Structure formats: C-alpha cells, structure tokens
C-alpha cells in the first residue's frame, strides 16, 4: 500500500476516526477540568457521535473498500453503524443523569462508550480477521471495563471480572479458530478464504466451528448464553442497555459477514447448527425469564430470547438471502430502540446510588409517573411483539422470512415463544399499573426524558409507520451481498 492509497483509505474511515478522536479528546480533557464542569464532557461526546453519524450516512450511497480490502465500507456496515451510533448516542443521553446520581467517573465513562462504539464500527466493516479481531477486542475490553465500572458496587465488579474471564475464554476460542482458518487457507481475508474453501479439509471445518462459537458467545445465544444474565444484572443499568443492543448487533454483523462471505462453502451445515441454536436460545431465554424476580435479570433473559428471534432471520437467509438478512438487520434495529428504552426506564427510576431492579421498585409508577408508565408499557408491548409497535413489525418480518424460506417449524417455535413471552412482559405492567407504590420515585430528570421520549415515539411510530426504515435494511442487505458478489 503506497502513501496516496493510505491517505485515501484514512479519509474513507472518517466516521471511525471521528469517534476515536472524540474519545481521545474526552479522555484528555477529563483530567484538565474539575468538579461540576466535567459534566460538559457529555456535550463533547454527543457532538462526536453526531459527527460520526453524519459521516457514516455517506456510506449508504457509495459503498467502497479501504486498506486494500480490509474494510468494506458498504451499506451493510453503514446500517449497522447506524444502530451502534444511535444506540450509543441515546445511551449517552440516558447515562447523564444516571452516572451523576450514581457518582461514577464521568470522563472515562463517555470515552469508553465511544471507544467501544468505534470498535463495533470496525467490526461491522471488517473483512479481514486481524482487523476483525482487534475491533472485537476494542469493543469487548471497553465493555468489560464498563460492566465493572461502578467501583462501589461489588456486584458491578463481579460482573466485570466474570465478563472478562468468560469473554477472554471465548476470544481465545475465536482466535484459535482464526489460526486454523489461516493455516488452511494461507490468508486472513474473507474473500480469499471463500475462494480457497475446501469442505473436505478438516482444518476449515474446525476453524469455522470455533469462530462460530466465539460469535455465538458474544451474541449471547445457546449454548454459550450463561454469562448474559449475570453480567447484565451486575453491570450499571445504562451499560447493560448499551451492550445489550450494541455488542449484540455488532456480533451479529460480524457473524453475518464472516459466515456468509467467508464460509459460504458449508452454508447448509452451519445453517443447520444455527437452526438448533436459535430454537434453544429462544426457548431457554423465555422460560428462564418467566421466573425472575428482578426486572433487570428478566430483561437479560429476554435479551437471550431476542437473540434467538434474530437468529431465526439468519437461518431464514438460507431461503432468500436478501429477505432473511434484511429481517435480521431490521430486527436488531428494532431491538435497539425498544430494549434501550426498557433499560432507559430502569435507569430513569434509579436514584441516590440505588438501582431500580426489582418488581417492587416499579410498583405503582402509574399513579406517580403516568408518562413513564406509558413509556414502559409501550416498550414492554414492543418486546412482547404486540402490534402496533416496532417489535411486532420486526418479529413479523423475521417469522415471515422464515415461513417464506420454508422453515415452518422454526417459525412455529418462534411464534410459540413470543406467545409465552407475553406473560412475563405483562407482569411488569401488572406491577406498574395495578399495584400500590412501595418506594419513593426519583424526581423529574430532563435529560433522560429527552432520550426516553425519542425512544417511545420511535417504538410506536416505526411500528405504525415504518416508512423507509425497512427499505434501508433491504438496501443494506443488497449492498452486503454485492460486496462479495453473491448478488
């Protein structure tokens, strides 16, 4: 790569660079200012994310690649980046009141959110395993730290170390898989791997399996889902919100890209494996969610279940790639909106160093905070997939593409699961609307309200009027297929 090409490539990854620079600015400015003024770092973070957002939009129009094919800056990446940046943006807004009331370190918090987002963005466009692995680790290490961010809480520290050990375990498995694939094909570029792919060489198969395992861990799907509830419960609630949508979506992005581009040679085999994974993930997530007594933990299990629904879309891609892929992508977007909202409400109801997590903590909010109760209701309905919310629409797409691809049993299992899931989402509402309040609710927090309003309106409006949000997913899926000539 000569200098002019390098220069050109660097310009092309503007959004990533914008975020990294913002992170560094936040990090550098943090020690220079004192006390209350640190709160202004919030604005730097928002501006940085906004710049990244705007620069990223360009990619929808001109898909290109940079660093001699290491990054594919196509619509697919742009779509996922949209999920990450919007998610990070709203999570940042939701965090402002939360981290101030919990008395957490402001500068490092915002910087880590932003760095982690930049890692996700690398991940969504990586077509070469070395960049992929580093993006993966930038994202992961940031969220390990964020999970253990509340140093006064032993539970948070416990979540951090558990996440790190188990995450490190899965990273090592992933790395070993990459090594096997490298050994078999002599390259770490996805397109060349696909070209050399030889299903009779066991190194390829073992490598595929190990890499798949690494991704399944990050998605939080069966059989590597055990970490999810513990870490989601222990981490600060805004971090849980952020990672449940961001990390999951990033893991899906890379799963799709690696499997469909790199390992399309044994598509039928990993698809079968994912069929089983998906069915178990949905069922286990939903069943375990029913008996939870903590809302936060219940939402953690629900997030496992949602990973399962999204996997239904991945499996459905076997029938029609564009439809299946776009349904997964749309599902993740919808999940970002509604799940961030649900965790946002919990963050909003936390006060004075105590998190809102049990059912008692939300009992009777309808009487004191009716608008918050309505927002919570809408998010719960959306998560349960009841129309007319974005959650219904997204589930509808996923199951429809499964039916279209003739995966009837998977669709039936999925629908049955979403029927069951209504039960525990509803329980939240029973407490919120039909019980007496048992705790004093925190006062009005204007900043969080902004984010919650956006999310509520988004959940409802995109359910009633999806407009072009769906077209965008179709286009992004198309550009993904175009990148490696599958279309």
């Amino acid at each position, binding site marked *: *790569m000569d200098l002019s090409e*390098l220069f050109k*490539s660097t310009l092309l990854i503007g959004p990533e660079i914008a975020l*990294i620079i913002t*992170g*560094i600015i936040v*990090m550098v400015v943090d020690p220079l200012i*004192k*006390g209350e003024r640190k709160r202004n770092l919030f604005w730097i973070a928002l501006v940085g994310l906004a710049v990244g957002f705007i620069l990223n939009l360009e990619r929808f129009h001109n898909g290109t690649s*940079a*660093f*001699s094919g*290491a*990054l594919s800056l196509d619509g697919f990446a742009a779509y996922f980046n949209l999920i990450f940046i919007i998610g990070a943006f709203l999570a940042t807004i939701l965090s402002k009141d939360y981290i101030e009331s919990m*008395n*957490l*370190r402001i500068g*490092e*918090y915002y*910087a*880590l959110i932003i*760095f*982690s987002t*930049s*890692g996700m963005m*690398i991940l969504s466009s990586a077509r*070469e395993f*070395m*960049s992929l*692995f*580093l*993006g993966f*680790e*930038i994202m992961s*290490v*940031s969220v*390990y*730290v964020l999970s*253990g*961010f509340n*140093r006064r809480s032993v539970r948070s520290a416990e979540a*951090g170390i558990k996440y790190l050990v188990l995450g490190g375990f899965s990273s090592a498995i992933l790395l070993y898989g990459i090594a096997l694939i490298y*050994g*078999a094909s*002599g390259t770490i570029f996805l397109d060349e791997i696909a070209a050399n792919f030889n299903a*009779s*060489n*066991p*190194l390829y*198969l*073992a490598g595929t399996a190990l890499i798949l395992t690494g991704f399944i861990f990050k998605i939080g799907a069966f059989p590597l889902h055990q970490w999810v509830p513990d870490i989601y419960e222990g981490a600060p609630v805004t971090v849980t919100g952020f990672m449940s949508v961001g990390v999951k979506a990033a893991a899906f992005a890379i799963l799709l890209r690696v499997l469909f581009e790199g390992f399309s040679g044994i598509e039928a085999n990993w698809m079968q494996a994912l069929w089983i994974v998906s069915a178990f993930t949905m069922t286990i997530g939903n069943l375990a969610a029913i008996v939870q007594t903590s809302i936060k933990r219940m939402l953690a299990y629900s997030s496992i279940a949602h990973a399962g629904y999204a996997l239904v879309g991945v499996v459905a891609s076997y029938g029609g790639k564009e439809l299946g892929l776009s349904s997964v992508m749309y599902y993740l977007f919808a999940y970002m909106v509604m799940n961030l909202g649900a965790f946002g409400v919990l963050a909003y109801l936390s006060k004075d160093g105590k998190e809102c997590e049990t059912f008692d903590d939300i009992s009777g909010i309808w009487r004191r905070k009716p608008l918050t109760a309505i927002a919570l209701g809408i998010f719960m309905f959306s998560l349960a997939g009841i129309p007319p919310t974005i959650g219904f629409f997204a589930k509808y797409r996923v199951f429809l593409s499964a039916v279209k691809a003739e995966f009837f049993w998977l669709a039936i299992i999925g629908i049955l699961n979403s029927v069951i899931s209504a039960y525990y989402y509803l329980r939240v509402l029973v407490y919120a609307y039909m019980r007496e309040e048992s705790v004093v609710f925190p006062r009005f927090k204007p900043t969080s309200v902004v984010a919650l309003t956006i999310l509520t309106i988004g959940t409802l409006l995109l359910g009633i009027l999806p407009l072009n949000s769906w077209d965008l997913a179709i286009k992004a899926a198309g550009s993904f297929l175009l990148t490696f000539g599958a279309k």
Partner: protein
Amino acid sequence: MESVLFYIFAAASVAGALLVVFHKNPIASALSLVLTLFSTAVLFIFLLAHFVAAIQILVYAGAIMVLFMFTVMFLNIREESLKFDAQNLPVKLGVLLLILFIFGYFASIGFKKSFSLNHAASLPESFGTVEGVGEVLFKDYLLPFELTSVLIVVAILGVVAIAKRGTD
C-alpha cells in the same frame, strides 16, 4: 537434533502449563507460565520466526509476567487461602487426560481425511526477520497495527477507571 530439541522444549512447555494449572501457589504458577512462554519462544526460533521469538520473551515473558507477579505480591495473599486447590489432584489430572483422550478421539474421527497444508515451496529470504515482519506489518496490516493503539488506550483508560481511587 532438531527433533530432540523440539521434544525437550515441547515437554517443558507442557510441563509449565500443567504446573500453572495445578500448582497451588500463584507465584509458582506465574514462574511456570514463564517457563511455558520461554519454551514457546524457543519453538518459535525452530519455526524460523526470530523476531517474534524475541518479542515473545521481551513482552510476554518480560512485561506481562512482571504484571502478574506484581499483582500477586501486591495482594499479599495469605497462606490459608492457598490451600483450596490442593486436594484431588490425581482426580483432576485424570479428568484432564480423559478430556484430552475424548478430544483426540473425535479429532481423529474428524481428521481421518488427512488434512493438507499448502506448504510453501521455499521461504522468502527475509522470513521471520525484523525486516520481513515489519514490511508485512506496516504495508499489509497497517490498519490493525493502528487499531492496537486504540486497544491499548482503552486498556489504560479501563485500568484507570477501575483502579484509581476517589470519585473525582
């Protein structure tokens, strides 16, 4: 000659690894890890990866292990907390052997078709040297190299966030 040396260092690395896992004292484990890493570095030299071998010793066996030792010393773990893993060593070793056996069995099923590596006819002249590795690193994999800097920033930031005292 080479094969004898290979077996010696391979045995040393496995022994080191086993000691890491089975020794009750973290300090001994850390030293055993150094043994493994060092033996691996020697194996790297057999594999003509001279630069990487040097790095392995400098960074891994040097810097990272110092970090481990420092933490272990810093925490000043009491004697009684060291007792826990000592029991049932034969059982645990047995389980490990069983796992290795099962893995080996399935691997031999899976790998019964002998796998083929595209062996290179000849190695480039600069293979494994600073020059050769540097050229690949800075030409083909410049982006990952830059990304490592971000990763290190994140790690520093994370350590500061977790370990620094005081809320401000």
